[in-house]
């Protein structure tokens, strides 16, 4: 295999594994602020118990996020040195800002969150919780700034530097508020909130089915349902807005999302389908004219298709089509699931509906899959460009790195990540089986 393909697989593997954790810490950060805030406001022990339990889970998730995140900070240099030389002037600032403004805030105050229960006043502990949640959200902001600039680069110019060329900043705020940034950050953050909401829903539903920690589970699932409904419905808005921006700024990617080949014809929206890349056509169940209507507000308006692009400038279509459709399908399912729970809550039957609770236990996987598939379609859909329209992925590699080296590191990453993934699930399961409540019984921490 080529160094390019190996490096892409390694980047995909390491970012995909890493990205199991940050959405949960971003979303759980919000939950911790709500739960601890309710505890401070009401003084009810159950909210304290909830905060303590989810803080422990948060700690485990955060540790895995840190351990796998260090890899990402350096992988641009190890495997994509030519890219790093080309974009460092623009892209590096966002990564440095993420470190200074987000990581220090997050990891510093995490110490108080995890270990500070008896060292600081309850109010100070709450401030630390807010700081950790803010830090997690800020880190999403800066990394999405960096990634969105790769998708829709603005605010830079290309100049010669030594014997080569590179991108340099002209307007920092244009780099930050590049055309896709706001859509993508809101879409990403809502995805993170969904991941945490369905995680809390899943654990709570498990306790409700087992009739354990019932009061804890009822309160947790109610908070989580509110956030799940909000975030899932918001995804319609942010998702639509993101897709419209993609249509305007990365038309080849949008065409791949929908498997739309004709260069200049109205386009429908596939519910599902299969792309025959050789025959350049897509077979499936389609709502005619719907994509044209979504993008242009007119079902007869033409949408730029893949045939408007040279074959060398097109992304892998079927992969992008399938991952995009899985994401959208799950997005719809999450809206239904969160509305079903809210309706049952309103009818006061939520805690008795075994079938719904059973679905909820496994629903934790859905936002995770959707987040992975969303990133997959965003990043593979950008191909063959690493910086859209400016630098090709094939021209961005490290020249001094050989395929043997990348195979070695890829194999080692695979082994280590399988081990870590298995241990994570094992320890998480143990914490969930153990359940909340012992802290109170042992008299640890501050009380109401």
């Amino acid at each position, binding site marked *: 295999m080529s160094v390019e393909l190996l490096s892409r697989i390694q980047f995909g593997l390491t970012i995909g594994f890493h990205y199991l954790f940050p959405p949960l810490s971003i979303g759980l950060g919000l939950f911790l602020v709500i739960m601890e805030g309710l505890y401070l406001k009401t003084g009810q022990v159950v909210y304290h118990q909830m905060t303590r339990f989810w803080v422990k889970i948060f*700690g485990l998730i*955060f*540790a*895995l996020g*840190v*351990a*796998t*995140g*260090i890899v990402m*900070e*350096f992988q*641009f*240099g*190890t*495997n994509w*040195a030519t890219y*790093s*030389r080309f974009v*460092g*002037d623009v*892209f*590096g*600032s966002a*990564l*440095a*800002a993420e*470190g*200074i*403004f987000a*990581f*220090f*805030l997050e*990891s*510093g*105050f995490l*110490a*108080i969150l*995890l*270990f*500070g229960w008896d*060292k600081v006043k309850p109010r100070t502990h709450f401030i630390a919780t807010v700081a950790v949640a803010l830090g997690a959200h800020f880190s999403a902001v800066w990394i999405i700034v960096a990634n969105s600039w790769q998708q829709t680069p603005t605010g830079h110019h290309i*100049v010669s530097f*030594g*014997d080569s060329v*590179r991108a*340099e*900043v*002209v307007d*920092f705020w244009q780099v930050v508020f590049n055309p896709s940034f706001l859509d993508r950050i809101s879409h990403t953050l809502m995805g993170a909130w969904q991941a945490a909401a369905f995680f809390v829903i899943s654990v709570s539903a498990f306790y409700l089915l087992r009739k354990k920690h019932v009061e804890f589970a009822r309160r947790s699932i109610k908070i989580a349902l509110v956030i799940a409904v909000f975030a899932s419905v918001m995804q319609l808005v942010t998702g639509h807005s993101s897709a419209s921006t993609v249509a305007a700024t990365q038309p080849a990617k949008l065409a791949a999302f929908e498997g739309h080949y004709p260069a200049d014809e109205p386009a429908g929206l596939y519910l599902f389908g299969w792309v025959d890349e050789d025959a350049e056509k897509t077979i499936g169940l389609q709502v005619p004219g719907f994509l044209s209507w979504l993008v242009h507000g007119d079902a007869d308006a033409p949408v730029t298709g893949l045939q408007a692009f040279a074959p060398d400038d097109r992304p892998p279509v079927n992969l992008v089509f399938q991952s995009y459709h899985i994401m959208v399908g799950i997005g719809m399912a999450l809206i239904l699931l969160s509305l079903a729970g809210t309706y049952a809550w309103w009818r006061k039957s939520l805690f008795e509906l075994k079938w719904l609770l059973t679905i909820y236990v496994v629903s934790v996987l859905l936002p995770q899959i959707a987040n992975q598939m969303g990133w997959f379609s965003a990043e593979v859909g950008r191909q063959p460009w690493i910086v859209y329209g400016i630098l090709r992925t094939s021209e961005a590699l*490290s*020249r*001094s*790195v050989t395929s043997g*080296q990348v195979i070695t590191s890829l194999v*080692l990453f695979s082994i*280590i990540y399988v081990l*870590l993934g298995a241990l994570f699930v094992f320890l998480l399961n*143990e914490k969930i089986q153990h359940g909340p409540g012992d*802290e109170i019984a042992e008299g*640890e921490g501050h009380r109401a």
Partner: protein
Amino acid sequence: MIFNLDLNTVWFFLVGALFTGYAILDGFDLGVGALHLLTKTNTDRRLMINSIGPVWDGNEVWLVTGGGALFAAFPEVYATAFSGFYMAFMLLLFSLIFRAVAIEFRSKRPSPRWRNFWDVSFSAGSVVSALLIGVALGNIARGVPLDGDHEYLGSFWTLLNPYALLVGITTVALFVMHGAIYLVMKTEDGLQSAVRGWVNNTIIVFIICYAATTVATLLYVPNMTDNLREAPFLFILPILNMLAIANIPREIHHGREFRAFLSSGASMAALLALFGIGMYPNLILSLPEAANSLTIYTAASSVKTLEIMLIIAALGMPLVIAYTVSIYWIFRGKVRLDAGSY
């Protein structure tokens, strides 16, 4: 004046300050990791881990942010070093991963085999991380083969030359000394008296390594002393360094553990300042083609970016220092185990 007054120089010192912050802070927790297996009982090992429990991941952020700042300010160095030293950096990343999860996982299960596995991972990860950081420093000072496009021409084995290995071992010795002093400050009773016994040995080992590195540098890497020869007043740095080290046993003898730790930190700062002055204005030396060296001018981002980054640093770094100081203040005093501990 050996330093130019320009943005590139400011960023040379700012990136240097971030890595110095990293060395002083993560240095002691890597050192604690290296000493971890010297303790035998489960309680002592938990005390060792929990002494760094609340702070180790914050300490590692200094490395991540240093990496980000290097990427932003000197992208050519970021690209050349990480792609050129590919396998070495992958090993460093694996060591850091194992070490991080070992801290988190170790005390989650009662089984002795489980705990031993993670104890060894924690310790080995710490030693290997410190060693590789030192080897990387040794190589950029000694020089590595670069071509005209700043691409590394050597292999993994090129990096394992005697000089770089010596700097690597010295770095391990430095972090072990620093970690032992940190442990004296954080522990009490039996464990503390054991650690006190280690401190003098770690100081002696470090001084031997330091002397050997100094001699080797004078003999084989004379370029590191050019700036010092031009500005002899900078000779105050090695003197400060030695005084700070000599002060450590005195403070410990008088039971002033925090001041001993500050002394150790000061000696590291002086040592890294000496390293920075020796390197200036080079960032990675090219050997044998010195003309291909990466300097703060040939490796830097545009003036515009350096200015933006300076604003970001001016806004962010006071906050970072404020958080760091308050976290260390809140978790001051001896480490004790409770239900929330690792």
